[in-house]
């Protein structure tokens, strides 16, 4: 038990039928840091995200956010506590405009929300396209829109599910710079990512999952040489 952890996951288990997607997984995040969550395909990374955010309620274990239990809450309740997330597959609202995609997010007066939305659209240079339907934007633009949509509520903890997938180099560098800036503002960030360059360059601590279990935890440099991690990725 870490007293100062913003998010604490303890012995969380999630089963789907006979498959144990997440198995007695524990981790703790300290505020103001960027964490990585890696592992081979099907190792339970996204399921763990879904347990934390309430989309797939955990079967056993505890999840605490700022010291309070959040397991058992509905997704919208978790979101309102201050946890924002993006999805592996883009989930913008296609027949809402870019601006509307941001305005729907809960919280605050309309005018304040509008100002914040316009500021965020400028931040990722989408302001020119604010009245375009989100479904008409390019893949990369939708990815950026989803990213800034999370920031509308100013969440303290941000979960990013493969933010770099399918994003070109220029856009990626902007995205990484934005993530670092958020960290500097005191946000805590947990990233699922397959691109090792991104993980190694960004994260201070990395958790490694394999078959739903946490098999390693530490700074990226150490993780890279960990025998169990190499075995999980490349086989024995």
């Amino acid at each position, binding site marked *: 038990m870490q007293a100062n952890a913003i998010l604490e996951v303890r012995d969380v288990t999630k089963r789907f039928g006979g498959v144990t997607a997440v198995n007695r997984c524990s981790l703790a995040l300290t505020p103001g840091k960027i964490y990585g969550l890696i592992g081979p395909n099907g190792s339970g990374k996204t399921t763990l995200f879904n347990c934390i955010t309430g989309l797939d309620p955990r079967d056993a274990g505890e999840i605490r956010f700022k010291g309070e239990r959040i397991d058992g809450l509905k997704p*919208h309740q978790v979101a309102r506590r201050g946890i924002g*997330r993006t999805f592996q597959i883009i*989930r*913008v*609202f296609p027949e809402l405009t870019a601006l509307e995609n941001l*305005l*729907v*997010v809960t919280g605050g007066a309309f005018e304040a929300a509008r100002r914040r939305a316009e500021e965020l659209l400028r931040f990722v240079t989408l302001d020119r396209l604010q*009245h375009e339907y989100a479904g008409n934007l390019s893949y990369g633009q939708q990815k950026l829109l989803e990213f800034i949509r999370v920031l509308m509520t100013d969440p303290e903890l941000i979960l990013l599910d493969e933010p770099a997938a399918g994003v070109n180099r220029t856009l990626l560098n902007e995205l990484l710079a934005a993530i670092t800036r958020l960290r500097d503002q005191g946000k805590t960030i947990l990233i699922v990512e397959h691109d090792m360059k991104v993980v190694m360059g960004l994260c201070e601590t990395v958790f490694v999952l394999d078959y739903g279990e946490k098999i390693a935890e530490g700074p990226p440099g150490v993780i890279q040489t960990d025998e169990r991690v190499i075995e999980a990725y490349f086989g024995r």
Partner: protein
Amino acid sequence: MKRAFAAALGVLLLALALYPITATGYGIRFMLQLFMWVALAQSWNLISGLTGYVSFGHVAFFGTGAYATGILVATHGWHWMPASLMGGVAGAILALIIGYPCLRLKGPYFAISMLGLNEVMRVLFSYFEGLTGGGSGLSLPALHASVQIYYATGLAAVAVTATAFLIITSRFGLRLMTIREDEVAAEAMGIDTARYKLYAFLLSAFVPGVVGGLQARDQGYIEPMAVFPLLTTITMIVMALFGGKGTVWGPALGAVTLFVFQELVWARFLYLHQVLFGAIIIVVVLLMPRGILGILQQRFQLPRTI
């Protein structure tokens, strides 16, 4: 543009308000039916057009409202005005009871559950003969109030359209649309989707209840087969889809277009009428699922006030 539209709307409403002075009995009856369809298509749009939860049993609220009003008028001697408001309340109560469990169902399962609701309501009203007269129906005391009912139905159509305008141009309406677009993402953005869906459902059930009550009063006689027809649900769906689901004016446009078309053309070709109606459903679903205003809205980036 905005001002011109508002002025045109004002003139139209004034003309409709003055219409009964010169109108024939047929004219009043025609317009009354037209108002009814506008109100029904608009109501359906509030739940199905916005949240994407397609209700295939919306006439259940209409029929329930008709019976609630009919019983209050025929058995308890109420005036038809408060009685038809209670018809709306009855529709909303039914929506509350049925919405709580059924709005958890997704896609076709919700649609089928609503279809089932309509069948159940029809059988229930047939079964409780003591209260409803069963299959032989319920007669209301004779009353000539077509002109008053014309105004009342028109008011219902205006009220539900105004409600649609207020909802669709607000954040509440946009949040209802996020449920249609991606319910999981909506939840993850902090939107209490279960509560939003229920609110929309209650709103969409109230006016059909009122209109059902007004129809019961106007017809003077109701029976289960007549107030729970599946065709009424299908007609309001097609009207809303044709004009543009999820838009403010689409359902009204669809209702006016199809109803006028039906009266002018189809009534002269009794059998062809059904075929044409089916053909329109197919064309709308296949070629223009967004409807007329939906297509215009997307192509020209029109605001939500359309």
